[in-house]
């Protein structure tokens, strides 16, 4: 804990505050557009554009011979849009798929850009490292005066870009949704999907250019794609997905910076790159989302399956004990005896027996168990479900009496009282199953 306190003792609200603000503005601006890249399965195109803006930047250097922002901005945006165009052309004219087309375009442009930047670096003050990894730590040093406030230039630029992206997503929410989901319907109903596509790509290029000073040319891809992809795991509604991606982007920016200045100290190193840690934080959030998402989450699916397995085991135990009791009322089985017949593993059986005891469906003494009245009730309902299903399968599904047992065995575990009542109606309230065994009543009347 001391090391953390020590690391945070260097915390400076002015410096660290502005760095975090820049990180948040950048990650939110990218995440907003990233949602549509992910949903259009164009994450790679975002990647391509962000790489390909490099020669645009370099060309602007050569032409204007300065680091002034406007020519750079224009040059980079043009390069970004050209990437989208080239990719589309190569894809439609050459016989290659979109991935290969993009690979051709953006690696060539990126390489060209690198060569140009290394050349430019000789006579213009430009560090290739900063271009690739960003220099978010330098954010507070370069300020402009806006309405009497001294604001870092990067923050001012990113604020404008964020505002544009926000307005774009809010104003064209409906159009983006439609053209991402069904470009054919968009085009046939007069919302030009191609126009929307290139507008989105232009904004991606602008956002990438605005972000390259903070998180750099390479890491910006993580900011575009990872928070929306994580949000996609957590919800299945578009509006919620966008909101969640923004929240995750903010969390990634804050935890990214804090961990950049604390985590390395735990291992005795100095602070590391904030942009890098932002991408790492986003990656961790994605892993968390992938594990815990409500629908696709690996953990959730695992837990759901376990619960079902235990429920079925519990019902099998009750059923087995009922049959044992029918045959020999004095025999009180122990866990080992039950396991032998059910082929169940030791600890799930023990847990289930504990659970059933807790539910008062069985009572145990000295490791031996017997059914309680509640347990017999439950078993009677299971038998009732089973036999009603058998009857139904023969009557309504036209199955033969030999094959129905296994089906009914499975179905009985998923049958509640309501369904039993329906089955009872459909089978004309019969009291015998196809094998001639009696179907027990829902409640004992005595």
């Amino acid at each position, binding site marked *: 804990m001391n090391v953390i306190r020590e690391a945070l003792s260097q915390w400076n609200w002015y410096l660290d505050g502005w760095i975090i603000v820049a990180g948040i503005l950048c990650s939110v601006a990218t995440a907003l557009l990233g949602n549509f890249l992910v*949903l259009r399965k164009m994450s790679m195109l975002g990647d391509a554009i962000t790489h390909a803006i490099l020669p645009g930047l370099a060309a602007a250097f050569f032409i204007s011979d300065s680091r002034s922002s406007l020519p750079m901005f224009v040059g980079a945006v043009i390069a970004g849009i050209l990437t989208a165009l080239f990719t589309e052309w190569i894809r439609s004219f050459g*016989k290659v798929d979109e991935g290969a087309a993009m690979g051709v375009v953006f690696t060539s442009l990126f390489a060209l850009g690198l060569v140009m930047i290394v050349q430019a670096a000789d006579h213009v003050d430009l560090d290739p490292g900063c271009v690739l990894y960003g220099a978010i730590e330098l954010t507070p040093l370069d300020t402009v005066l806006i309405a009497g406030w001294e604001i870092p230039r990067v923050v001012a630029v990113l604020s404008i870009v964020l505002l544009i992206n926000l307005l774009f997503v809010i*104003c*064209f*929410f*409906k*159009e983006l*949704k*439609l053209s*991402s*989901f*069904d470009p*054919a*319907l968009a*085009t*046939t*109903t*007069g*919302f030009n999907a191609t126009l929307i596509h290139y507008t989105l790509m232009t904004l991606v290029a602008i956002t990438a250019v605005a972000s390259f000073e903070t998180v750099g040319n390479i890491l910006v891809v993580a900011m575009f794609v990872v928070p929306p992809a994580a949000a*996609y795991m957590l*919800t*299945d*509604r*578009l509006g*919620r*997905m966008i909101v969640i991606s923004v929240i995750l982007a903010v969390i990634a920016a804050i935890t990214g910076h804090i961990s950049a200045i604390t985590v390395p100290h735990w291992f005795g190193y100095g602070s590391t790159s904030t942009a890098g840690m932002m991408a790492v934080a986003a990656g961790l959030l994605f892993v968390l989302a992938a594990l815990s998402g409500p629908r696709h989450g690996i953990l959730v699916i695992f837990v759901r399956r376990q619960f079902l397995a235990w429920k079925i085991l519990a019902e099998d135990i009750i059923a087995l004990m009922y049959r044992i009791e029918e045959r020999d009322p004095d025999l009180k089985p122990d866990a080992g005896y039950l396991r032998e017949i059910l082929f169940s593993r030791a600890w799930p059986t023990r847990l289930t027996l504990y659970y059933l005891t807790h539910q008062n469906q069985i009572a145990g003494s000295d490791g031996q168990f017997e059914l309680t009245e509640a347990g017999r009730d439950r078993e009677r309902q299971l038998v009732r479900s089973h036999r009603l299903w058998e009857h139904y399968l023969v009557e309504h599904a036209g199955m033969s009496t030999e094959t129905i047992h296994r089906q009914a065995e499975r179905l009985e575990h998923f049958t509640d009282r309501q369904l039993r009542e329906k089955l009872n109606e459909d089978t004309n309230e019969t009291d015998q199953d196809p094998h001639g065994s009696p179907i027990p009543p829902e409640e004992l009347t005595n």
Partner: protein
Amino acid sequence: MNTSNSVSPDRQNDTSNAAIPLSVYDLTVAYHRKPVIWDVSFDIPPGKLIGIIGPNGAGKSTLLKAVMDLIPKASGRVQIFGKSYQKNRHRVGYVPQRESVDWDFPVDALDVVTMGLYKEIGWCLPVRKKHKVRAMEALERVGIADYARRQISQLSGGQQQRTFLARALVQNADLYLMDEPFAAVDAATEKAIVQILQEMKESGKTALVIHHDLQTVPEYFDYVILLNMRVIDHGLTADVFTPENLQKTYGGRLTLLEEATETMRRREQSL
């Protein structure tokens, strides 16, 4: 034709075709210089259910897409109610092929149906309550209002198809282009869709439907277009849906196809 009287007579060329929902003349479409459909010409009569029949790869989907300008035409002319598609596209509704839909997209059934109203709502304006009410009515009409709030991958095949049918219904078009609406649906849904198609026909709509199950063709469609790169024949079902024409359309593949259909049918019944 009686409807031509109601159309303004000032444009000769238009009035002559204004009653024909879809007129295709000399249409050729090619992918990478290899023709997919070749010299396709036909007119379809209004207020009828029309089936497009042909083997896989015959260019059925390509034909519909070319009609809607979704893919470029190598040559030919398409007219919708006597005008170019661009001028009359508001009169066309489209039900896409189920393979082309991204079922994991984060939208629910109601969202999808509401998309049919976006054109009417216009650029940038939000979806309002009244639009959702209309979308709900369409979902009720196809019988899946209870599932309006389900994400589309959690609907059954039949419910998914009905969702897209409901979307076409709210578009309130006069000509519907449907790419295999009966694919992967259960018997109950198939009946429901046929019922809705009949109702549409009775209210004067025309539907052009890509269809695969040859056995139901005479029952469902008044008019058929037999397509295998070229139009083999088109006309009233009773006239052109003949064994000879089918043999020409499917070539030697017909018996194999019949066999496969039969196997699938048996497998479905055993479920």
